């Protein structure tokens, strides 16, 4: 009898040791969703206060668009999670684009910009919408000319870059500003840091589902909750003229229907979802994944039916809501006024 008891109690002790203290998958493993590191800053565009101030003004300035109605903030507004709540956006002259506006929040952590990843940096991205005919519809030459005519901008470019207004400076200043649009700790981060009541019980359960049965982490892994890659979910591919996503940029057939994995921090603020804004709520997105995406020949091999229960879906939503961090206190800055009669003439524009 003594031996039997010893054996069973040994097994019990072994179990207890295996259980250990409560912890998280997120704390280990190379795809784990840890805390955000410091914002990466490219060596050729260091952050300065003056540059960020200039970038903020450019970001909010509708004069960058052809008809003076659209700024970056029109589609990426701080009031709507630095994105907006339309499925797709309306640019100048009421033109409607084909893709949902991604959030600027924490975009500094993304390796690729735009849904098809055609920009490899914020600097590259910053100029894209300006000369996109549907969005701001302005030529870069015109933008430089217009800004160079504004004394306040002219002076700031001189101060920040030691040059006149030019496209490189516009891109660098906007990118520098966007690198300050970073969210602070979320309940999830506080939970990771040991504050065990920072997340609701539903969110904690959702975290396990996210990192297990729902397979979310296989793509939404890492501190930004993105694998910084591209996947084919099949969404919208059955339309008459489907958006082919990354293939449009790379011209590689294997990229057909692939779109960037967006980061999920602050995702609760940035509805609607998916590249075409076709999912109105987080639950709608979960339903897409639960049925294993939309069947198509190039469907990502990571997508499979999940068979989530109603409670697991609700828990996933609770978890994603717990990824909402504190938001940066940034409002629309005062913009430089247009030149008045008698102001000094521009010195020559782009260099």
């Amino acid at each position: 009898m003594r031996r039997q008891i010893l054996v069973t109690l040994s097994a019990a002790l072994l179990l207890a040791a295996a259980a250990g203290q409560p912890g998280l998958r997120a704390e280990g493993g190379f795809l784990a969703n840890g805390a955000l590191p410091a914002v990466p800053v490219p060596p050729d565009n260091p952050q300065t206060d003056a540059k960020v101030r200039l970038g903020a003004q450019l970001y909010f300035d509708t004069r960058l668009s052809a008809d003076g109605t659209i700024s970056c903030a029109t589609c990426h507004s701080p009031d709507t999670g630095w994105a907006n709540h339309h499925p797709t956006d309306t640019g100048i002259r009421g033109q409607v684009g084909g893709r949902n506006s991604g959030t600027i929040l924490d975009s500094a952590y993304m390796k690729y910009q735009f849904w098809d990843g055609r920009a490899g940096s914020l600097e590259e991205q910053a100029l894209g919408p300006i000369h996109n005919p549907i969005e701001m519809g302005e030529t870069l030459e015109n933008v430089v000319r217009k800004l160079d005519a504004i004394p306040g901008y002219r002076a700031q470019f001189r101060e920040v870059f030691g040059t006149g207004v030019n496209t490189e400076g516009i891109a660098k200043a906007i990118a520098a500003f966007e690198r300050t649009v970073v969210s602070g700790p979320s309940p999830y981060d506080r939970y990771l840091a040991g504050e065990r009541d920072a997340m609701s019980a539903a969110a904690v359960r959702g975290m396990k589902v996210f990192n297990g049965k729902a397979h979310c982490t296989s793509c939404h892994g890492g501190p930004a909750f993105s694998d910084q890659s591209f996947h084919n979910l099949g969404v919208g591919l059955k339309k008459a003229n489907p958006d082919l996503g990354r293939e449009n940029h790379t011209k590689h057939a294997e990229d057909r229907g692939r779109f960037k994995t967006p980061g999920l921090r602050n995702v609760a603020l940035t509805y609607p979802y998916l590249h075409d804004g076709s999912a109105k709520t987080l639950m709608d997105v979960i339903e897409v994944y639960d049925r294993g995406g939309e069947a198509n020949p190039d469907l990502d091999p990571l997508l499979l039916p999940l068979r989530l229960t109603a409670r697991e879906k609700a828990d996933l939503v609770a978890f994603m809501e717990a990824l909402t961090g504190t938001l940066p206190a940034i409002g629309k800055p005062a913009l430089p006024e247009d030149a008045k009669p008698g102001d000094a003439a521009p010195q020559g524009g782009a260099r």
Partner: protein
Amino acid sequence: MKRAILFVPLLALIFLAAAWPGESRAVPVFARKYGFNCTMCHSAFPRLNDFGSRYRENGYRLPGRENEERTVLQGPAPFAARTGAGYDSDKFKNAPEPVGDVSQFRLQGLDLLSGGLLGSKIGYFMVYPPRISESRGVVGQDGTLEMASAVFARLAGSSWLNVRAGRFEPAYAAFSVKRHLTVSPYEIYDYTFPDGIPFSETQSGVEVFGLGGKGLHYAAGVLEGAESNLSDDSPADYYARVSMVFGPGEGQTAGHRVSLIGYQGKARHLPVEAPATLRESYTRYGLDASLNFGRVNLALQYLAAKDDKGFWTGATSDPTYSGGFAEVLFQPRTDLVAFARYDRVSPPDEAPEESLSRYTAGARYYFEDQVALHAEYSSRKVSLREAGVPDATEKFFTVRLDFAF
């Protein structure tokens, strides 16, 4: 006294179940590598889900993310363990050979596991049950290397060509004995001629396998084969399997998978000292299906066999036999799965038993992804040909904790 023996360990189990932490931490080797929970790959540990099945077939690499993978040298120590502890009751009646009844709490052996990537395209998986002496309260094990295989994935850059080499679970066993939920064995997998090759066992050899478009999977291999072969007998066992998957998924937890298998082997029959030229052949062929309807999985296996008459004492023609099983899994929640299975084997005329059947039912409740409370009842009946000899029966019951860390 007997009541006390039962009471103390049961109390320990109940205490553990009640005190189990709300979150899981310790995870086996692959989950630890990525930082995933076990349910990423397992519908109910140890059974794989579709994702886990793809991961395994992809050489232990995440499909589509092969370029980002890390080798065993770049991650945490690639070791894990699996064991269990609980109460077993095994009662025999009219057994042809004396078998002792069991009624005791036992530690259910131990598997040491290791797996990961040796290089960007070379995965490996190893299972070693260390030698444990049988004693009261402890299930003994031999200490042989159960599995040690390397997988060379996507040779020539295509999912059509992958190679598994070493000692592994060959693809002819459609339902993994190592990853199934029941303790009771699949009878048809274990039924064979004396010293033959049970389908439930791992084998040494090489397997080529691939995944095509439109749900087509194939596997073919050459193996060492039956234990009655001597060390200088060249491998002469071959098999092939072709599967089609219908619908989204891999047929594990979504979609439907239907397969055909064929196996041709050669082995010495007793006495094994006979010249190698006297090795006789045997064949197995069968059909299996894994069908998924919402939260219900229906697993069907049918196997037929034809052996050379030399394998069976007294046979005047080549004996044939067949059997299979039908198993239903119902998983209403992620932490709860119920199972029921019926096994049947119709032995050859030369065998002393006329029929063999088994009913199994049970459930597993998961305190955590990798910690299951397992309860199972199984009733086995063997009808003998000899007139007047009563059926031999076995009634098996177990409740145990099954866990890996």
